[in-house]
Every structure is written in structure tokens, then in C-alpha cells.
């Protein structure tokens, strides 16, 4: 589903396509309450999705399913930065502080986290009929 979400996002939004085409990183997402995860291997314009956590990840996001969905709803503000001051942003920040959302490798990879967030974000999408 996460791979499908990125595909739909990139196809529908030129600004996300630009990020996607430049982005190279290996991002793990581990959904803690279902004990399953994926590794998203971004390779400048292509994406390979591996089941489970593959080695040599740049960052790994660990959170419950609902939080992973909330991350996708973060708004993107000025300079392409995620917005942490609205209701959704505050709930994400709180989960980070409470340790309910963990991002391994965050220090030193903040730009990677921001780019992944931009590619994932569905907030503010233009409304369109279902595919």
C-alpha cells in the first residue's frame, strides 16, 4: 500500500516527481502494532519496495499504523518543510517526544526525513476522482 501511495502521489504532483527523481535513499518503515514493515529503496526516479527491513537503511521509521497514516497527512509548508504547528503536525511531534514514533538515523539525515515526508504527504492534494 505504501508503494502504491508513493506511486499515486508522484504521478499526480509534479513537485513530488521532482523530489522523487532526485532522491536516493533507503528508508525502512516498521509498523510496530502489526510487526511488519517495508524498505523503500529510492533510486533517483525509481523505487523498489522490499518486504521487511533490508540492510543499509539511511533511516528507519518505527510507529503504529495510525501514526504512519498521520505522517502521510503532514502538511508541507514554506521551503518544502513539514508543518509541525497545526493539529496533525503537533500530534506527530508529540509522538516523537513520547517515543511512540521513532526515526532511527534522524540525526544527520534530516534532509532525507523531510524529502520522504514531502513525497509521502497527501495533505493539500487537489481533489480528484478515484483512479
Amino acid at each position, binding site marked *: *500500500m505504501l508503494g502504491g501511495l508513493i506511486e499515486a502521489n508522484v504521478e*499526480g504532483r509534479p513537485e513530488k516527481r521532482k523530489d522523487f527523481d532526485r532522491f536516493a535513499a533507503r528508508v525502512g518503515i516498521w509498523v510496530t502494532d502489526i510487526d*511488519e514493515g517495508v524498505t523503500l529503496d529510492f533510486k533517483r526516479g525509481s523505487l523498489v519496495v522490499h518486504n521487511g527491513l533490508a540492510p543499509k537503511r539511511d533511516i528507519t521509521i518505527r510507529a503504529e*499504523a495510525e501514526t504512519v*497514516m498521520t505522517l*502521510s497527512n503532514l502538511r508541507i509548508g514554506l521551503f518544502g518543510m513539514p508543518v509541525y504547528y497545526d493539529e496533525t503536525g503537533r500530534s506527530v511531534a508529540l509522538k516523537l517526544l513520547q517515543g511512540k514514533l521513532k526515526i532511527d538515523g534522524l540525526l544527520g539525515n534530516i534532509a532525507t526525513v523531510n524529502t520522504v515526508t514531502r513525497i509521502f504527504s497527501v495533505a493539500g*492534494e487537489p481533489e480528484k476522482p*478515484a483512479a
Partner: protein
Amino acid sequence: MAVKPFSNDWADQFKDQINSSAVYKQTGKGWKWTVGMVVEAEPDKHFPDSRGVVMDLFEGEARGIKIGSAADAQRCDFVITAPYTRWKQVAQKELDPTKGMLQGKLKLKGDLPTIVRYTKATQEVVECSTRVPVEWPDEK
């Protein structure tokens, strides 16, 4: 009174539950697409034929919920497909719909970014379905 799942009586009660939900009224604002639930047959569970639930949801309101064929549901803007037992797990809160979709236990067809934007509304619709008392055919 308990009703048969995915029957016309069930659909009427489900619709009433959605329309009495203040949470759905709020979180469903902006939603204007039809949603089809395909309930796949499981004859060994006394659910012999696949069924479709066609939900006309609009701006935080259920305008109509009808029972039809699986093909009717598949014509909706968004289609969620699962066998009878999975839907029963969802209705009994044993399977969270968000987790179910992430795991592929509930198969979703439609524009993913749109449905992700309405995660809370989706959860509330499912919550409404759990409030309908049901007599499950495999528990008779």
C-alpha cells in the same frame, strides 16, 4: 434487534449509525465519492454468495447504503474487497481497517492519497458498522 450481516436491514441500520455520528459528520467533510464493499463468499461459513455494499457517502453524510452484487460494488469510486470472515473481524473490532489495508488483508482499489487523507473518516465508518447488532450465520 440483531440483523443478518450485509442484508437490507443491516444496510438501513448502518446508514442510521453513520448519520447519527458527530465524528463522521466532521471527519467526512469534503468526501464525495462512492465506496463499495465486496464481501466475498465463504460457503463453509454459511455465507454462500458474494455480496456488494454500495455506499453513497457525501460531505459527512450517508445518502444511501444499498445491498447489491459484487459487480455493483466494484463500480464504485473506491472498492474494498475481503472475504466474509475478514469483514466479520473488522465488524467485531478484531481487525483495525488501517492495519488491514496496510497488510493487504483488505484490498483497496481507488485513489490512495484521497483515502489516506480521510483515514479518520474511514475509521469512524467502520466504528459505525460495529454498532449494528448482527447475527452471524456461522455462529448459529
